[in-house]
């Protein structure tokens, strides 16, 4: 299959802006192109971290599960029931 003739390229560009009546100041802005929607979302996913509070909460929940008393023998025999 032929590839599209106008394939999108990933490039970085720097722009300089001059502020009048003030000392010259360079502002750098980076423009970025993504080759595909998948790449864009993957970039977003790579930059998304699990908050520490979430991890703490999961740890506490798991620890709480471990601390639950063991089911009595008759519950284990007849099956667990949710009370």
């Amino acid at each position, binding site marked *: 299959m032929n590839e599209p003739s106008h394939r*999108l390229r990933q490039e970085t560009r720097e722009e300089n802006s001059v502020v009048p009546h003030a000392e010259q100041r360079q502002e750098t*802005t*980076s*423009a*970025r*192109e*993504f*080759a*595909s*929607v*998948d790449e*864009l*979302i*993957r*970039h*977003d*996913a790579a*930059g*998304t*971290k*699990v*908050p*520490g*509070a*979430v*991890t*703490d*909460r*999961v*740890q*506490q*929940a*798991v*620890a709480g*599960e*471990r601390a639950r008393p063991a089911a009595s023998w008759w519950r284990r025999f007849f099956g667990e029931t949710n009370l």
Partner: protein
Amino acid sequence: MPLQTLMPDSLDEPSPAQPVAPTGWCSEEFAEIYREHSRPIYYLTLRFLGSPAQAEDAMHDVFLKAYRKMAQFRGKSAVRTWLYRIAINHCQNLRQAWHHRNILPSGDDVDLDAAGGQSENPLRLLETKELGARIQQALDGLSEEYRLLLLLVADEELSYDEIGQLTEQTPDAVRGKLHRARKAFQLHFARTA
């Protein structure tokens, strides 16, 4: 010898009013599962539900359920696929509860043909903090099915077969819908600029 804390990278900012969490995990096996899979699962819940608070609640529920069912899971599928299944079911149940209150545009009826006429790449953007917000806004404009497919295919560890299993359709159906989902996303994303 204290348990080694197998925690994924967390945000730098401190949690101001959080109780002191126990250090380490009580299950080394589960700690390893969490360390390896928490980030993609969190990303799915965050972008699917559209709210960090709801994603936090979902993460708690999903991994607690996974912990409870860990003994029953013995390699029937990949761990990540298994976790995704729990997360997807949980998120879809949550969304169903608000479905009648929040009528969202499905986005499926956008003019996909218009995407071909754009002269400028809608994916070109300035790298700003608002990238995540723009992506979220674009995803919110899609149907749940399209949103889910895009989030799953973004995980390079998932195959089309696995995505098909998670969404209960054939890999070919997944490919076809992904094509339309990508186009719809591009249109919505361009509108967020």
